[in-house]
């Protein structure tokens, strides 16, 4: 009897203790999954919030938050406005990332090759097929390019990376915009597909003459040769945290609806042209306001203390002004059943 009471007490104590580490659940984009995991780990000690994030893809994340099966959804591409309004969701960015162009040309080292946007598009159009094409050679007078076929590689799986990259090609090349367009997967005129960032990286590495696009982190961690790209201002920029941040600070965040700011091909001498934000989706009318409040508490913590972790994983932190604007939007947009702001 005595033993049973003790056991019960211990169990109850255990239950209340574990309830104190509050769970927040999220699902969606795979691209920010590593930083969300890192933030989740660090935030658990600091805030007592335990993040359970499932990287099921942006499409899945949107569906889950529309159905309200998770506390927040995550999406690389901004959600379609009519769908978001119909589902009564609030959207804001969490962190940014950059896409870089990788090449495998024997004898050419990283950032040695210079390209502009139309040339990148024309390679994927199949209009430029050899590395010693006069247009490429013209732009790269200092280096001897081999008479070798270009082997374009793209993401075969639907992905936010493809959306960002195809948006860039649409922005710089009218033919691309008219014939192909931008989406999480597109109808590539030429080349071959590989699965995931690592698949593209490995295929380009294995194929002499290979050409592809990956998230910056994959290029950096695998020591892949990247290409310098001519930006809107006309200067050649190499991928680095500095050029990524420059693009973010030049963007027009204030006038972007739902924070769906276009970071592609920004003006500015130092701006890297292929940068994008990844988004979080929260219900504007949460059934359980405490859980939504916890999500905001978590993001607030990440905004305040997560920048170093983000840059450590080659993500680009948001500019301070944007963070302030997002915090303000929470109070204005997300209301509990009583009509009062949740946070």
């Amino acid at each position: 009897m005595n033993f049973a009471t003790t056991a019960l007490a211990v169990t109850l104590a255990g239950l209340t203790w574990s309830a104190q580490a509050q769970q927040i659940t999220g699902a969606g984009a795979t691209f920010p999954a590593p930083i969300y995991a890192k933030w989740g780990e660090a935030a658990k000690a600091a805030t007592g919030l335990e993040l359970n994030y499932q990287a099921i893809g942006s499409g899945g994340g949107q569906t889950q938050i529309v159905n309200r099966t998770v506390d927040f959804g995550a999406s690389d591409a901004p959600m379609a406005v009519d769908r978001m309004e119909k589902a009564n969701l609030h959207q804001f960015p969490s962190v940014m990332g950059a896409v870089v162009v990788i090449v495998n040309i024997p004898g050419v080292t990283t950032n040695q090759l210079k390209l502009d946007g139309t040339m990148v598009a024309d390679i994927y159009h199949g209009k430029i097929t050899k590395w010693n094409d006069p247009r490429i050679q013209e732009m790269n007078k200092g280096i001897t390019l081999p008479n070798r076929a270009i082997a374009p590689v793209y993401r075969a799986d639907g992905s936010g990376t493809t959306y960002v990259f195809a948006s860039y090609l649409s922005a710089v090349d009218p033919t691309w915009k008219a014939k192909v367009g931008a989406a999480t997967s597109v109808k590539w005129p030429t080349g071959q597909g590989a699965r995931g960032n690592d698949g593209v990286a490995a295929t380009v590495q294995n194929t002499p003459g290979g050409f592809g696009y990956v998230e910056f982190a994959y290029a950096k961690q695998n020591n892949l040769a990247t290409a310098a790209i001519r930006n809107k201002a006309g200067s050649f920029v190499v991928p680095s945290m500095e050029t990524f941040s420059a693009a973010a600070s030049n963007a027009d965040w204030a006038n972007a609806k739902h924070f769906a700011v276009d970071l592609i091909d920004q003006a500015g001498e130092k701006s890297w042209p292929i940068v994008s934000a990844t988004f979080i989706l929260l219900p504007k009318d949460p059934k359980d306001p405490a859980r939504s409040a916890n999500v905001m508490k978590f993001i607030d913590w990440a905004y305040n203390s997560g920048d170093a972790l983000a840059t450590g994983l080659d993500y680009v932190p948001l500019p301070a002004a944007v963070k302030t604007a997002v915090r303000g939007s929470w109070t204005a947009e997300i209301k509990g059943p009583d009509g009062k702001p949740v946070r």
Partner: protein
Amino acid sequence: MQQATVLSGKRNANWGDRIFAGLATTSGVFVLVLLGAIIIGLAVGGAPAFRAFGAFFLVDAEWDPVQELFGALVPVYGTIVTSILALVIAVPLAFGIAFYLTELAPGWLRRPVGTAVELLAAVPSIIYGMWGFFVIVPIMAKVVQPWAIDTLGEVPLIGFLFAGPPFGTGILTAALILAVMIIPFIAATMRDVFETVPPVYKESAYGLGCTTWEVMRSIVIPYTRASVVGGIMLGLGRALGETMAVTFVIGNTNRISTSLFGPGNTIASIVALEFPESEADSLKMSSLLALGFILFVISFIVLAISRMLLRPRTKA
């Protein structure tokens, strides 16, 4: 006292029987319901795509997510071509294995080789995919394809089969990996059916002075023909639905290529690749479900034929 125990034991046994029978029936019916639910689920999910594109869906080579134009031709073509090519490679090898194991191998070697073949069947497909991507693809890209393009590619009439840049991936590489994956299934079935031939037939033939090959050709094969074809169909069924290993090595391109080295796509791999980033209720999602339905129907037909042919033979 004793009697009471026995009685109550009997009553319990009665109840136990009924509960067990109920549970077993439920399990049996559950399988049927599940199968039906999957077919209906795929058909209903794919209905918007069939409505939007009609029968044209089956013969349209377009796959353009931006314009929302979808057709099944490229993945269906890729699925069938890779599977057939895989059979062309696998069947002679599997026949050799089965023939060796039943007729030629010394007794002490039969078990280890037989077990090795069965173990091959247990290797997870992702392992074959990784092995294909990291071992076979570089060999194809650096040795096999450049050689074939320079020699066979120059031959008139068949040259187009060996054209294109040597990526290493493509239809032929996918077929090779598939062949390795289905060999154990076909070989194991063939060995088992070869062993069902009554020894007296074979012994009679040997007694008449037949060679091993003549016994195989005139006694074993005719006796087991239907079951052998059934085993091949079983392998085909597996090849049609294989996803991971193929995705790694096929090149994942929605274009029909006449070259064996050209990239392609299969139904299973396009569904695996595109599904996570498809929005619910979109035409793309529906097209993927419709593709799943088509694959289901193809595999169902193939497996039904295999079941029919593998039925234990009844003496007329």
